[in-house]
């Protein structure tokens, strides 16, 4: 699956310029970037909705698709909506039941009209539709918008199950970086009309590297720079990437933070997407 020299713009405004990327099978990618950078536009190009672009899209025919503002036929039930979609796309309608089951829509709910669905169920149905594809790629644009924590957890596990069962590649575009980072294999960063692939999990292999989300940014940074257990610090907003000295341990650092009354609210061994985003986009 390759995007080769993709260029696209709205009128005079250039959105992509010679953008290239190659996607690996069975990977879950996070597509991140600030508002208006072209995430939805890129998904629309891959999905075939926008066709007036330059360049080539290889091996991404007929992807499953979830767009923002989920829409279905209000007077049809969830199941009927999916069956009609299958008939339109010449997909075996027998797949509908397993797609509904995967996103935890029970038969009773599936037989209800779409107009009575809550936002959470709308998202579930939208994701179920995106799973009903013969293509090797699924595009999910803001799949966790306006849904509660339980629904997000359930949808994330559905996405992982789907990937494991089908070996399809999934691209998730989301602003809720913390919500998606744990299911991603890699990250696609959109900036300067280009797409950069980052393996934000690679840092996990470096045992002495940790990410600390601090409560007080600058003051804490100055204190941390004097810490005997720390060899290097990179700050991105309130998140510090801390390289521990070879002979220092994490527990020593945490004790030191406690003694110095430096409060923190999250500790990661893997690079948080927010850190990657702040470093590459905001700076």
């Amino acid at each position, binding site marked *: 699956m390759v995007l080769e020299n993709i260029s696209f713009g709205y009128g005079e405004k250039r959105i992509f310029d010679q953008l290239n990327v190659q996607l690996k099978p069975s990977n879950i990618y996070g597509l991140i970037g600030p508002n208006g950078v072209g995430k939805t536009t890129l998904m629309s190009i891959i999905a*075939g*909705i926008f066709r007036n672009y330059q360049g080539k899209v290889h091996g991404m025919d007929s*992807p499953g698709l979830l767009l923002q503002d989920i829409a279905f*036929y*209000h*007077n*049809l039930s969830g199941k009927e909506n999916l*069956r*009609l979609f299958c008939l*339109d796309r010449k997909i075996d309608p027998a797949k509908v039941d397993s797609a509904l089951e995967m996103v935890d829509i029970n038969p009773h709910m599936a037989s209800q009209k779409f107009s009575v669905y809550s936002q959470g169920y709308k998202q579930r149905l939208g994701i179920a539709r995106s799973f009903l594809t013969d293509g090797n790629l699924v595009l999910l644009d803001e799949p966790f918008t306006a849904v509660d924590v339980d629904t997000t957890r359930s949808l994330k596990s559905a996405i992982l199950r789907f990937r494991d069962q089908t070996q399809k590649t999934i691209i998730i575009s989301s602003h809720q970086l913390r919500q998606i980072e744990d299911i991603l294999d890699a990250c696609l960063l959109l900036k300067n009309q280009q797409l950069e692939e980052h393996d934000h999990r690679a840092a996990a292999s470096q045992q002495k590297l940790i990410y600390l989300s601090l409560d007080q940014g600058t003051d804490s940074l100055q204190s941390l720079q004097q810490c005997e257990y720390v060899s290097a610090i990179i700050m991105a907003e309130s998140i510090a990437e801390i390289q521990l000295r070879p002979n220092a341990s994490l527990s020593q650092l945490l004790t030191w933070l406690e003694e110095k009354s430096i409060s923190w609210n999250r500790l990661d061994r893997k690079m948080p997407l927010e850190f990657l985003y702040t470093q590459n986009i905001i700076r």
Partner: protein
Amino acid sequence: MYPLYLEFKKLNRKLLLFVVLGFSSIPFLATMLFLVVDKASFTDLPLSLIASNNVGTWSALLYPLLVLVMVQALVEAERKAKLFTYGRSYRRAWFDLLWRKAAVVFGLLLLVTALNLIYNFLLLQTASEFMEAANLGELQRESSLNFIALLFSFIPLIFFQLMLSILVKKTGISYLLSILLLILGIPIANLTNIMVNPFSFGIAVMKPGVGLFSLVPIGTLVILISIFVANYTLKK
């Protein structure tokens, strides 16, 4: 048949009820009421007057309005469900969808026409008791055939209105344009033999010397152009 059933189901049930009753039973009941209330004014007048007036309302106004309302409702259902966006990701042609929509509207026209045939029969039967009719049977047959001719004459309009509703994304403007064409069509079709406006095909069918079969070439052309333009617009 299942996709066609779902096409019907996409529509609001209240709208369907309004269409079926509003475009058949209510005009019939209103006409019956006038006949009963003002019976004296109609007594001994020729029954053909009622027959031609009844069909006339349908040919000029009610059938085109029915097509307009139904097509707009069908296209709006697609817009709300964003099919025109989603569909672009996997569709290369939209002919099957256009045919399905046309079949739904024609199905409703067929239902309304069937009701109208029954109501028209009852109306003429009732009015014949105090109005003049040389041959009631012949009048019944003639006006029934007129209703059937009207049904077929509006097939091109179904496709034309589909095209217009797809081309013009704002519902209000689409309605306005259609109503303008409908209103403009009435005097043109009445006073001339220029038959290009599908909103006036019903009037044309009723005109002496025109008839249903003479509309076949222009009607076919309207259908083909409408399908082509609608398909092109959706693919673009």
